[in-house]
């Protein structure tokens, strides 16, 4: 079983809809949680960075972390065709344990005009 599980999609939604993405993980040592967006032929771009449990909002993006359930989510409101990309969740343990990021497999999202 992978340490981080993420549905590969593709997830197809109409423009303006809410996109809901999630990852589950098994390592209880993970405390830092990230979401990256990756366009074709580009590197991953950091969208959200959260520590421990709770919610964080940045514009149209909301990240949620539920450590008790080992479950993280990313919501994209008012989705646009430009949001079509692969979304990667990533997580890491405290810095003292190293800086290694463990990634989910990525979810392809397609927002249709």
């Amino acid at each position: 079983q992978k340490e981080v599980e993420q549905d590969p999609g593709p997830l197809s939604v109409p423009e303006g809809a809410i996109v809901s993405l999630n990852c589950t993980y098994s390592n209880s040592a993970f405390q830092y949680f990230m979401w990256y967006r990756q366009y074709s032929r580009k590197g991953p771009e950091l969208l959200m960075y959260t520590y421990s449990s709770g919610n964080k909002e940045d514009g149209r993006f909301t990240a949620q972390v539920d450590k008790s359930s080992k479950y993280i989510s990313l919501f994209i409101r008012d989705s646009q065709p430009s949001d079509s990309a692969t979304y990667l969740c990533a997580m890491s343990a405290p810095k003292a344990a190293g800086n290694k990021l463990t990634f989910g497999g990525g979810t392809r999202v397609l927002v249709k005009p």
Partner: protein
Amino acid sequence: SAVISQKPSRDICQRGTSLTIQCQVDSQVTMMFWYRQQPGQSLTLIATANQGSEATYESGFVIDKFPISRPNLTFSTLTVSNMSPEDSSIYLCSVEVSGDQPQHFGDGTRLSIL
């Protein structure tokens, strides 16, 4: 965030040859990393590039195959040695600007081996 430049952006190489990939950052960073992203897959950490000392490799990756240098706080290289078609991947450099910041990535080097 730091601006990360990778060279080359892509290359097509012959089996058995080696290629060195460069990663240049526009400011000093604490940590530099090298990842591999195989076609249709997610990212796997190859190694942490340590300034002034040998890189720290993850399980399944060895120095003879992936020698890494980091001569200063803004530059690192990854060499893919004795390449085979299985090495066809995207190789990505990432950096941590400071200890409490997340990693940021370059656009990667797309490598194809014939």
